[in-house]
Structures are given as C-alpha cells and as structure tokens.
C-alpha cells in the first residue's frame, strides 16, 4: 500500500515538475524571441589571428585609426589635413574624461601621440620606398610635430631632403637627429653626404670618421671617406671655403649606421690616387703601350672567334725593331679620352681580353694608348706582334696544311709572307704542297717573290719558280694564271735571266711551264 502511494505520488510529482518545466519553457521561448529581436547591434570581437598567419598580423594593428577618414592615397586631402587640429583633438579626447587623474592622462596622451607619430613614420617609409619624397617629408614632418624627440623621424626626413637635393635642410635635419642621438650612424652618413655635396669636405670627412669609429667595418663610409680625401687632396684650399658647416657641430661625436646603399653617393669625380700600382697599371713613364680591357655588353661584342695571340716578352728599354704596323686601321685614342674611359679599366671581368695586354716598346712620347676591344683593333695590335714573331719563330712547314695556316695568318703582311717563304727550302716545295696547291696561293707566292726579290737572292727566285712547277697538277694551275700574274712572271724571269744568270734553256723551260 505504502508502495502504491509512493509511486502515485512520484508520478504526480513528475507531472507537476513537467508542467512547471513547460511553463518555464514557454516563458523562455518568449524571452528568447524578445532577446533575439534585440540582437541587432554590431558585435565586435577581438579575435585571435588566423592560424598560420600569427606572425604576419602584428604590425598591422597600430595604423587602424585614421584610415577610414582619409585614404592614404588621397594626397590632396592629406595636404589639407590640419595636424595641429588633429593633435588637439587627440589631446582633448584623451584629456577630457580622465583629466582628474592628470598623471595617468598625461601618460596615455604621450602614448597616443607616439602611436600616431609611429603611424606617420610608417606611411613616410612607404613613400620613401616608392620614392615619393615630398609626401614622405610631409609624413615625417607630422611625426616630428607629434613627437619632437625621436631622432629617427629627423634622420628619415633628412634622407628625403637629401634625395631632393635640399642639402641644407638635409644637413640640419641630420644635425637635429644627432643632437637627439649622437650615435645614430645613418644620420651621420646622411649628413656626411649632404655636406660633401655642399662642398664642406672637411666636415663630411669628420662625420665619416665618426661613423668609422662607431662602425669600423662600414665599407660604404670608408669608401666615401676615401673619395672625399681624394677630393680634398685635389682642391684642398677650396674646401676651406665650405659654406654651411658650423664647426661646433662637427666637433660633436657622431655616429653612423650602415648606410643603405642608396644614401651614400660616391663623389661625382673621384680623382684616383696614383699610387705605384696605379702607375704600373697605366704604364705611365715606362714608354709602354697598355691595352686595356673594354667592357662591352654581350650583344655588342664581336661574334668572330677569338684569335690566339702569343705574348712575347720584350725587354724594357729595347726599342721595337720593326716598322710600324702596315695596315691602316690602327686607332690611337687621345690621352684625355682614355682618361674618360678609365672607369672601365676597373672591370676586369673578361680574362681573355686581359690576357691580350701586351707590352711593347712604344715611341717614347706615348704614355697611354687605349685600343678599343673591337676585333679590328685587336687584330691591329696583333699585327705588330706578328712581325716580330716572323723573324725569329717561323718554322718551315712540312706539309700544305701548316703552310696554309701560316700563310693565311700572315695574310696582308707582305713582309712577313716573304720572310716565311724565304725560309722554305725550294726543293721541299713539291713535297709540301703535294697536290694541294691552289691557284690563288700560287699567284700570291708569285707576287711575293716579285715584290721581295732581294730576300730570295740566296736561294734564287728561279729555284722557287722551278720548284713550283714540280708541284703536282701544276699544269692545270698554270692555265688559271691571270694576265697580271703573267706579267709578274715575265718580270721574274727577266730577273732570273739578268741577275741570277739562268741559262736560256731553263728560262724557256719555265716559260713553257708557266705558259707564257
């Protein structure tokens, strides 16, 4: 009985609970509908960044503030933008509600200004990257107005002025930056550049020395300093008159950072210091012609294969034995021209060309001769060398291939060819040529013989002529002899007859062979 009551009670209880629950539920439903209707406002949440973009996101946070009002590309609006007013607004905003706790508000205000200035700087930096100097300057100016004690803003604005060639302003900005941070290397370097271009070389070198003291391995600064010193050497007295340097500033300790390559500009006309190696390089005072490398862009270079030029040592002081190069194309550049080109000398990129530097005794008056790297001129140069070579180094050929290669090589140099020919034993000629004698070679040989009869007196022109006849297939070649060749032959035969006392029989034989 008890049990039944209990169960009954429980069921009733459950139903009651359920009823209560349902009432609750209905109330809840109504409430939710009301709540939902109220859910209209924009709901901004500070969300953590997207996974895998965690690193990127940070720097973007600061600049949110002004963006919506004026777009960063809208330069005109920015020009009209009243910084003072904006600052006041910012101040009012900050000061207004919290002004009771003045210390706190001050802090917050400074923070705010700094943030603002930082933002301006970022914008300025972007302009600098795009080389928009004027916009960048106005950004930095705004940043400076907001925060007056940050060296970076001054130094950056200085850079912009420098780029705009407003050298005095650049200098004063850098000076200001250095007042705030005497160890700011970049500012030092910028000021040095500005001063250098203003002509105050001494002040500039001062700055650079300071840079090097702070950063001994700053190459850009070192280079610049050297250049300046060189300039000071050349126009020492001038630099004294340098306009805008205040000595007091110079003497201040200054610091430099690695310069961005952009900033440091090499002096316009560095006058290279002529030390001994330099002298050696230009060959000054040694009566030597130095052939310098010339750098040409690949598409302008000659397509012809490089020619092998043997280099021969000639003792200094010995005068070159031979005649000036016979061909007409030698180009000698004027000395001052050469000077203008001197920059090119530095680039020794092409070793092959460099190898062509030859020493040669020149006529004493010439200190420098630049032969341009074009193929013709190179060949010219080689001509002169070759002549020397002929005398000493030529070896008689043993076959037609050797002969032809040398012969072609000596093309255009009658002297050299005659020399070459003269060292060939006439009796060997048939075996050298075998059946490879060409008619044009034959006529060349005849011309050479004719032109240099004297050289062949030892062996006898006739011997050569007879030897040629013994070359295989000579009969065919003889048929191709031109009239001028025949004329030359006639002269040669006459020479044989008169000078070499060749007998009539032999002459007649030759005439027959050469079909005269």
């Amino acid at each position, binding site marked *: 009985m008890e049990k039944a009551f209990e169960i009954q009670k429980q069921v009733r209880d459950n139903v009651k609970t359920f009823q209560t629950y349902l009432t609750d*539920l209905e109330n*809840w439903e109504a409430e939710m509908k009301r709540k939902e209707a109220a*859910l209209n406002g924009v709901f901004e949440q500070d969300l953590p960044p997207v996974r895998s973009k965690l690193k990127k996101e940070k720097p973007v946070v600061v600049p949110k503030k002004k963006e919506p009002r004026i777009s960063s590309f809208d330069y005109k609006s920015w020009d009209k933008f009243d910084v003072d007013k904006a600052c006041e607004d910012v101040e009012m905003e900050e000061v207004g509600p919290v002004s009771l706790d003045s210390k706190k508000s001050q802090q917050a205000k400074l923070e705010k200004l700094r943030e603002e200035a930082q933002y301006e700087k970022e914008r300025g930096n972007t302009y600098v990257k795009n080389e928009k100097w004027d916009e960048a300057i106005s950004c930095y100016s705004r940043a400076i107005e907001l925060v007056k004690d940050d060296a970076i803003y001054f130094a950056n604005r200085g850079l912009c002025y420098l780029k705009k060639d407003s050298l005095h302003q650049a200098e004063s900005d850098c000076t200001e930056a250095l007042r705030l941070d005497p160890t700011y290397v970049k500012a030092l370097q910028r000021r040095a550049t500005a001063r250098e271009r203003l002509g105050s070389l001494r002040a500039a070198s001062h700055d650079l020395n300071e840079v090097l003291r702070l950063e001994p391995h700053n190459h850009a600064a070192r280079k610049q300093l050297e250049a300046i010193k060189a300039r000071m050497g050349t126009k020492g007295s001038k630099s004294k008159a340098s306009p805008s340097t205040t000595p007091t500033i110079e003497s201040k300790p200054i610091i430099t950072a690695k310069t961005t390559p952009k900033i440091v500009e090499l002096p316009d006309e560095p006058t290279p210091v002529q030390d001994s190696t330099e002298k050696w390089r230009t060959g000054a005072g040694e009566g030597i012609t130095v052939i310098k490398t010339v750098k040409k862009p690949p598409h302008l270079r000659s397509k012809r294969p490089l020619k092998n030029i043997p280099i021969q040592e000639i003792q200094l002081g010995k005068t070159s034995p031979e005649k000036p190069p016979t061909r007409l194309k030698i180009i000698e550049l004027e000395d001052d021209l050469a000077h203008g080109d001197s920059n090119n000398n530095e680039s020794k990129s092409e070793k092959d060309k460099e190898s062509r530097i030859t020493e040669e005794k020149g006529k004493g008056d010439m200190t420098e001769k630049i032969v341009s790297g074009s193929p013709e001129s190179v060949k010219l140069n080689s001509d002169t060398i070759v002549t020397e070579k002929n005398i000493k180094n030529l070896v008689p050929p043993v076959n037609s291939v050797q002969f032809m290669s040398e012969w072609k090589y000596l093309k255009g140099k009658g002297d050299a060819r005659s020399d070459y020919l003269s060292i060939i034993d006439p009796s060997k000629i048939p075996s050298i040529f075998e059946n490879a004698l060409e008619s044009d070679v034959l006529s060349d040989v005849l011309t050479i013989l004719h032109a240099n009869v004297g050289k062949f007196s030892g062996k006898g022109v006739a011997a050569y002529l007879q030897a040629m006849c013994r070359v295989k297939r000579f009969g065919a070649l003889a048929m191709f002899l031109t009239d001028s060749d025949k004329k030359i032959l006639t002269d040669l035969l006459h020479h044989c007859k008169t000078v070499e006392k060749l007998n009539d029989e032999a002459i007649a034989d030759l005439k027959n062979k050469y079909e005269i």
Partner: protein
Amino acid sequence: MENQDTPQIITHIEHNLNHSLFDCKWIPCSAKFVVIGSLPKGSGTIEIFEITSGEVRKIREIERPNSFKCGTFGASSDVERRLATGDFKGTLEIWDLEKSTQVYITKEHTDIINSIDGMGGSTVNCGAPEIVTGSRDGTIKVWDPRQRGKPVVNMQPVQGESKRDCWAVAFGNSFNDAERIVVAGYDNGDLKMFDLRTMSLRWECNLKNGVCCAEFDRKDIPMNKLVATTLEGKFHVFDVRTQNPAKGFAQVMDNTTKSGTIWVARHLPQNRDIFITCAGNGQVSLWKYEYPEQRYRTDDKGAACGVPGKLRRLQRMVVSTQPINALEWNRDHQGLAVATAYDQYVRVLVTTKLNLQ
C-alpha cells in the same frame, strides 16, 4: 531504482518530416533550431523551426542540389549565427540563414563530410573561430572562416597508409588562444588526438569498433573528459586530465545496454558530468560520470596515472523506433534538447530535474 530526484525524459514535441534527417542544431540565443537533411531525390535541405507553446513551426527552408550531412554554429558569433555545413560531395559551406545564402564555400574534401565541429565563435579568449571537418576521404581539415578557400590545418594519413573513413571530429582543450585539440574517430575504431598548437598527434588508441561520435565534456577548458561512442553499443569515457606516458588516459567503458550502435553522445551544457547517449534502437540514456576519490595516482615509475571513475545511468527512455542520429542540448535552457532520428521525426525532448543531480 527511481526516486524523487530521478530526471525524467519526455518527448515534448514530435514533428514528422517526409525526408531523411542527419543533424539538428539549436540556433544560438533563440528558440529555433535547424534540421539538416536530404530529400528522397537527393537534394539537401536546411530547415529552420521555431518552438512555440508545444509546437514547432517551420519558418524557413533552404534546398540545394547536394545532400547536407552535418552542421555547426560553433565558429559563429551569437549575433551572426552562421551555420557551417558539410555535404555529401565534400563541400564546406557557411550560411547566412537570414539571407539564405552562403558566405563561404570551399570544396577541399573529395568525399562526404561525415562530421563537423566548430568553436571560437562565441567564446572569449578561447582561440580563433575555427571549424573542423572529417571526411570519408581520410582527411581532417581545420578552417578559419576568415581565410577563404584553404584550410588552416590539414591532417591526412601519410603516403602509403590506408585512408580510413573519418566518422567523428570534435574540438577541445581550447582554454586559451593558443591551445586547441582535435579528436577524431575512424571507422576502424581508431581514436586520434591532434594537438593544433604543436601540430602533432598527441595520442591515439583503438576502440575495436568504429567510432561514431566523440565529444569533450567542455571545449573551452583544459581537457577534462572525453566520450567516444562506437558500434556494437559501446561507449568509452576517458579521463583526459592525466596522460600517462605508457598507458595514456584512464577510461571506463560501458557495453551494458545492448542497444546497437550508439550514434551520438552529448554532454549537458549546464553540467559537464552528465551526458546523454542515443542508441540504434531509438533509446536515449542519461549518464552521470562519477569521479573517483583521487583522479590520479603515481605509478611505480613515478609518472602520474589517471584513475577512471564510474558511470551511473540516471534514466533511459525509448523515444524512437529508429536510430537517433543526432541530438543537441539547448545551451540556454537546461534540459531542452532537439533530436533527429531515421524515422524521419524531429523531436524536442525535455529532461526534468537535471538541476537536482
């Protein structure tokens, strides 16, 4: 047996729809829920219902050519309330339900998205809004609605390893902006725990039967308990506070019900130690996890080792003739739940006296 404080599970509203239902979710901050399903002709539907005085009223319907499989509001704020859905073709879409349009579409999965979970939308300082999807193609991808097109994390079997059908995914351990864990269950019984902060597999085990559902008791606290349900009427409760280097997590397993597949387990939002399981025979069971006196002890090697607690069944009730495949507790009203089953009914369940437990 039953006493005065025993919760009662009552089917408050039953509504018959003429198509298959796969998932149901409460719309945050409202008395409305969405039902995700598939029409016989193969197109997918998203329907919005509102409960009013013991009745449900359909207030909107979206139909699209591809069947939807699952959905979540987890990565959306309570104001925007955007539903992320996964469909049979592997497309992840985020819906603006007011306008009935997608605001985010991406198809990176090559097969059906079986399971989806979201988090970070309405919590503060608990990490970015993110959605995790598990697919038959064997991959688990984590998405951030702010990043279009590509997942922020992609977990897939290494080359050569066989691809298992991923049936269940869930977030957890997201107690600050950095920490977050994804747990995934596979058809072969594998249960894997991925740490999204270190991008590593933190733990895995095999439950012998395919894992149908996995859920942490809370997503936004240092992980505490994990429930994983499987085929064959079993489910496992892991105490994931204490991980032993050798033994992993302590667990308690229940296979007493013989009710067929346990399709889903859901923790009560108002009480993390109470959860409900929905079984293949249409029965829902309410469980309470009772902690041991000491949650961990020190083993002979000096390492901490978790101690499993006990499971107590509070109530059970057969509410459907077919498997209940989805259930969700209402976040705002204790004891209110919506469930879909393969008998094509959507039910609003009421559980009383939960506050007494």
